[in-house]
């Protein structure tokens, strides 16, 4: 069995298919392309599930690729190595699942340039999987940069006739790429400094995560490195002053792209903090954690208020994502087992919830050509099935028991309360509790202003959910309920 389960195949399969799809030899027939891509993403998801099932934390998957008998860049000690631990295999599965859902839900939102769209979606999947499985800092950085290219085209590309936000989408794509590049340059500085100081103090010229030990690096340098890295990840996460790209990008992109961005892309930032700061530089992380916890608290509370003030339904969801990412950050700051596992669990549950919410917003926009909750009303009367799903997913996102976010939110707060690093973290945990109330404020506003009321006459004939949309929402909801009922499936793996 272990022969079949290959990490390079997992990571590079979508990339190879994407090049195949992009090549002029491949058909440009819309239906064939759509079915083919759904098949590819579905197959990839099954393959990841298989890898998850056979995953064994005592012998994690690890592989190092040699080109012509040499490491990738031998002179700098850079290896092309991929490997997974429990956290990354969970995130890999989440990635594959969300991409599969996005591909299925692309049927109605993508009306143009199918070839380009699907190929970029696959390339983005490869890049994100690469981030989650990289075993070397520079390889991580390579995938981190590579991911910008497809993400740019997916956000700013023209995939719909007469899309009224096309120009805004273009500018927000440029904003996205410049912000990310800005952050990644700080990150590169951090990586270069770790690479050098690890070589100086330990004598190992290597960039593998496994070979870095922070104990011998001077402490001041460690803090400098940690801050550089945090700026890089903070753009992606996002941490509050660096967040302004996110609402624009998520709002103006097409629905499946928003699902992918919020569901998976943001998690790369959290994963980076876990992989670099939490795991590799624990000493400095313990010093920075209180500051980060306060930033996380600001994230949680401030964006919850901002979200309440929004009138655009996609913007409400986008700001709620930032708020939830603050919670994930808080879980990491606790630096204990409960905090970490809760944080990873919240990545998964928030990925599912936010994909569902963006899907709902996208469906509403497709039918009503409107995203403003002040003018939008009566969706519930014409689309009862959508309403049913919306109620369930919104309740899940508020943190109702039975759904996954409840467990992860409560566990995060418990983890942070138990943190023995600093009193600031415990305070942050205490003050983040109002999130549960605030999130119900903005989420219920989303629900009741948009869905209730009397529908306008011209929308009386709107169709309810199609099969595709039904399946996507049902599987996301199914995931939420399964993990809500047996959270130990994820928590157990991390412990």
């Amino acid at each position, binding site marked *: 069995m272990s022969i079949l389960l290959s990490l390079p195949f997992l990571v590079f399969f979508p990339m190879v298919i994407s090049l195949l799809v992009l090549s002029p030899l491949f058909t440009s027939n819309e239906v064939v392309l759509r079915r083919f891509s759904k098949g590819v993403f579905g197959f990839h998801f099954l393959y990841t599930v298989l890898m998850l099932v056979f995953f064994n934390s005592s012998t994690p998957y690890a592989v190092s690729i040699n080109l012509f008998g040499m490491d990738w860049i*031998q*002179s700098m000690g850079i290896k092309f190595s991929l490997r997974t631990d429990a956290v990354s295999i969970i995130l890999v599965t989440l990635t594959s699942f969300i991409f599969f859902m996005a591909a299925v839900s692309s049927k109605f939102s993508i009306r143009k340039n199918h070839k380009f769209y699907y190929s970029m979606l696959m390339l983005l999947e490869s890049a994100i999987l690469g981030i989650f499985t990289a075993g070397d800092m520079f390889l991580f950085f390579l995938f981190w940069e*590579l991911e*910008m290219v497809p993400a740019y085209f997916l956000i700013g590309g023209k995939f719909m006739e007469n899309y009224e936000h096309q120009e805004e989408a273009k500018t927000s794509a440029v904003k996205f*790429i410049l912000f990310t590049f800005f952050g990644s340059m700080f990150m590169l500085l951090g990586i270069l400094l770790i690479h050098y100081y690890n070589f100086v103090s330990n004598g190992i010229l290597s960039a593998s995560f496994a070979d870095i030990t922070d104990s011998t690096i001077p402490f001041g340098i460690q803090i400098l490195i940690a801050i550089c890295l945090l700026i890089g990840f903070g753009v992606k996460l996002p941490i509050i002053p660096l967040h302004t790209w996110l609402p624009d990008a998520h709002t103006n992109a097409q629905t499946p792209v928003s699902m992918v961005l919020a569901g998976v892309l943001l998690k790369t930032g959290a994963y980076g903090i876990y992989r670099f700061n939490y795991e590799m530089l624990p000493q400095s992380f313990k010093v920075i954690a209180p500051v980060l916890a306060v930033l996380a608290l600001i994230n949680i509370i401030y964006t919850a208020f901002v979200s309440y003030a929004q009138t655009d339904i996609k913007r409400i969801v986008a700001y709620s994502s930032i708020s939830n990412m603050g919670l994930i950050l808080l879980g990491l700051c606790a630096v204990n087992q409960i905090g970490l596992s809760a944080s990873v669990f919240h990545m998964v549950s928030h990925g599912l919830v936010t994909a569902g919410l963006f899907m709902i917003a996208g469906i509403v926009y497709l039918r009503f050509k409107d995203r403003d909750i002040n003018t939008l009303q009566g969706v519930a009367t014409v689309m009862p099935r959508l309403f049913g799903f919306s109620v369930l997913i919104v309740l899940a996102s508020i943190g109702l028991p039975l759904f996954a976010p409840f467990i992860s939110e409560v566990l995060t707060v418990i983890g942070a309360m138990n943190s023995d690093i600093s009193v600031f973290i415990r305070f942050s945990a205490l003050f983040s509790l109002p999130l549960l109330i605030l999130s119900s404020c903005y989420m219920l506003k989303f629900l009741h202003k948009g869905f209730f009321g009397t529908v306008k006459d011209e929308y009386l004939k709107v169709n309810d959910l199609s099969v595709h949309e039904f399946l996507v929402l049902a599987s996301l909801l199914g995931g939420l309920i399964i993990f809500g009922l047996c959270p130990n499936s994820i928590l157990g793996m991390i412990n």
Partner: protein
Amino acid sequence: MINDIFNILLPHFILGGFIILLLVLSMILSPRFYRYARIISAVGISGAIVCLSTVQTEPQYFGFKNSVMADSYTLLFDFVILACGFLITLLSKNLVRRHKRHAYTFFAILLTAIFAAMNIVSANDFLTLLVSVELLGFSTYFLISVSKGYLPKEAGFKYLITSAVSTGIFLFGVSYLYGITGSLNFSAIYEYITENETSFIYAVSAIMIILGLGAKLAVFPFANWVIDVYKGTETTVLAYLSTIPKLAVFGIICRLLVFPLSNSFEIVFVIAVISLITALWANTYAIRENNVKVILACSASANASYVLLTSSLVSVYNLSTVIFYLICYAVMNIGVFAYLNMYGDDKSFDVSAFSGLYHKNHGFTISYAILLIGLAGIPITSGFIAKIYLFTAIANSGLVFVPFLLGLLLLTVIALYYYLKILLPLFQECDKNTSVQKLRTNFSQKFVVAASAIITVLLGICPEMLIELCKFIAYNI
């Protein structure tokens, strides 16, 4: 004497022979035979490349009373310069068709420039260096103003003035150095420096020498020419201007810093500051520009400043990164200008004029896009590897240079913005009523664009071989 020629100067002499042949033919042949000029020049360059195998490099060879030298380092630079020259010759088909009367002269001057560039790299004496730099400057001046019109003349004149002034500064530095050491020979100067205490005036002279040479790279005090010169120059000549003089001057600057000019902190710090100023100026200037040529001019200046900063922090490792960066950069630049050459010299170079070109010319526009994202330093291209490799060199040089590194890294974010400005219109959707042109291309242009894009991607995937070569060269200097 004869030994010297056969041991190290055979490629130079082959080129010299072809220069004379081309000049003679330019006098006796009628313009109808303009086609053959390109072939003759290509044959000459290939001959010189073949003759590189005769150069003796192990051990280092000093010829003509120590005034020229050869080792594996000069051999590599000679090879890269000649290869670039060959590609530029391939690209010049359209140019000579427009200037039939001057075809033979054009190639004679191009070969002279290549000759001068090779001579700069192998110089071991400030006198040889001065003569070669002047020869390079004057040939470049003629190449820039080859076409008719106001802009090329303005460009050529600006280049001439700048290069004259910078040579003055260079000579001033050399005269100080002569005053201190009493010799113009690199080896003798190095001996003197290692035996005696150096003074403040020595650092001043070293900085003046570097700045004087730096004018060819468009580095800070003499950076302004690059805008007007690029704007008024034909794309073929730009492919030359952005590669060969740079390779040659970096070749000699790296060696000057390694052995005749000692590596004192003052020199390094001043050069680092100058590089940072150049990068700041070039990157911010490009933001508000809309002309593709001007943006590429700024990018050339900015890239030169990154390399100059690294090469001033002398170490073997840094030298290997510099060589790797220069090679990757030369490949990408030639490819970019080959695409612009395909696009045509007589058209507008405003970024909006390129809109939608992708829809009629898929392959080449994608190649062009790959080259541009390579210049911006995004994977999977050689530009990404080269930039990381270069920046590791700065990071390894101590905490003092971390602020400089941070500055450069942030400036590359700005650089990404202007590369996107060139890149995005290519893929723009067009209205039905504006027709996108299908580019008229010839085989050699296609070859250069495709080959450079392929090399860029291949080096991005498996760079280790070339890096090993660069390290070998750097260890043997």
